[in-house]
């Protein structure tokens, strides 16, 4: 019986990773149960345009004034494992402000909140699998994992592709950030090339003179988007 194909070794973090202290009491220790491929879920939710407001992918326009920080465009394509675009993929993001502060009650870092920045956004990919967000570059911030621990600048991403097994929650990083080699969350991914794939690249082609810098980040989701669930079942 064909078994579920698992992730390429080293490309996904292990659940138990003690340098990231919160994994210690929250990661399962019993063996994960391997299922025959036929028993794994093929279907998944498909989201519609009704979920998305017109400017939900522009994090800079929802308040009276402009947010403080480096204005940036983050864009890219969502692709499946065969390199085909994933159309209509729901992409959700959240992030800290330019000072490294989240607008969230459990963030106790004393950096200032920005009255003009909430830090959440969402969009659906277009017919070419493309997405974009306009935002400000998030700052690094301290966290309680170990003495003098600082997270590198990052934007949280949540994606739904074709089928629930393509679900992905991850973080996008910025090029040239010296905090990355020190960060246990980033370094929980054993494979260096896989870590590098979470780092966006500066994109001068999409940057706009006197206005904003652009960063490009393509995201590969598990599975194949070209075979809808209904066809695969037959």
């Amino acid at each position, binding site marked *: 019986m064909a078994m579920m194909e698992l992730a390429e070794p080293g490309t996904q973090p292990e659940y138990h990773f003690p340098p990231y202290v919160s994994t210690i009491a929250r990661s399962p220790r019993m063996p994960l149960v391997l299922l025959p491929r036929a028993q794994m879920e093929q279907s998944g939710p498909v989201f519609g345009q009704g979920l998305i407001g017109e400017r939900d992918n522009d994090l800079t326009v929802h308040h009276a004034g402009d947010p403080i920080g480096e204005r940036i465009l983050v864009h890219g394509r969502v692709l499946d494992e065969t390199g085909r675009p994933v159309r209509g993929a729901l992409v959700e993001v959240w992030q800290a402000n330019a000072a490294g502060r989240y607008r969230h009650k459990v963030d106790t870092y004393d950096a200032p909140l920005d009255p003009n920045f909430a830090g959440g956004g969402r969009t659906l990919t277009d017919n070419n699998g493309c997405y974009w967000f306009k935002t400000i570059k998030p700052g690094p911030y301290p966290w309680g994992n170990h003495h003098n621990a600082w997270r590198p600048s990052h934007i949280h991403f949540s994606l739904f592709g074709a089928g629930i097994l393509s679900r992905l929650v*991850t973080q996008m990083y910025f090029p040239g950030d010296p905090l990355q080699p020190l960060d246990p969350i980033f370094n929980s991914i054993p494979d260096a090339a896989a870590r590098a794939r979470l780092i966006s690249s500066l994109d001068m082609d999409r940057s706009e003179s006197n206005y904003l810098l652009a960063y490009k980040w393509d995201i590969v989701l598990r599975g194949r988007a070209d075979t809808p669930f209904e066809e695969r079942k037959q």
Partner: protein
Amino acid sequence: MSDRSVRIPASSQTVGPFFRIGLQYLIDRTHLPSIVPEGTIEIRGRVLDRDGLPVPDAMLEFWCGAPKLLSGRDAESGVPEGFRRVATDEKGEFALTIPRPVAEASSDAYLLVLVFARGLLRHLITRMYLEDEVRSDSDAVLLRVPPERRATLIARADEKQAGLYWWDVVLQGTGETVFFAW
């Protein structure tokens, strides 16, 4: 042997403690109604860690599968009826309603559940079956689970309220929930 993939899927990273900033809107869109509609079940439970302590910052996504549940309402709201996103409160508790799942020939009625939290570098995948709908030896997945651990996948039917089920997710330790490799 299936065809080899040409691209390697992106690595997972934790959802962290601040996910509500970007993900709360969909929790709100699929929130608990005051009256539980017909054909719908209610699920209540907790997420617990190794020490039995509540996990107050977990997010769960429930999927009752199948395009058969798509309806005209989905197109308007943009959210399929068979999908729910919930987050735990300060007591580690969650609650939701969702269409009652349907059994098939080789599968008892179940919901697929994804578990996200600070401290989970990759989300967990599990299933929730309904106590009063589990047939003996008919579900190919339950049969692969060691018998002594099967109960962790089965939600308990409330003794008084029909359609209400209780189900806890234990991330580690005594009574650890069965999670699937993926």
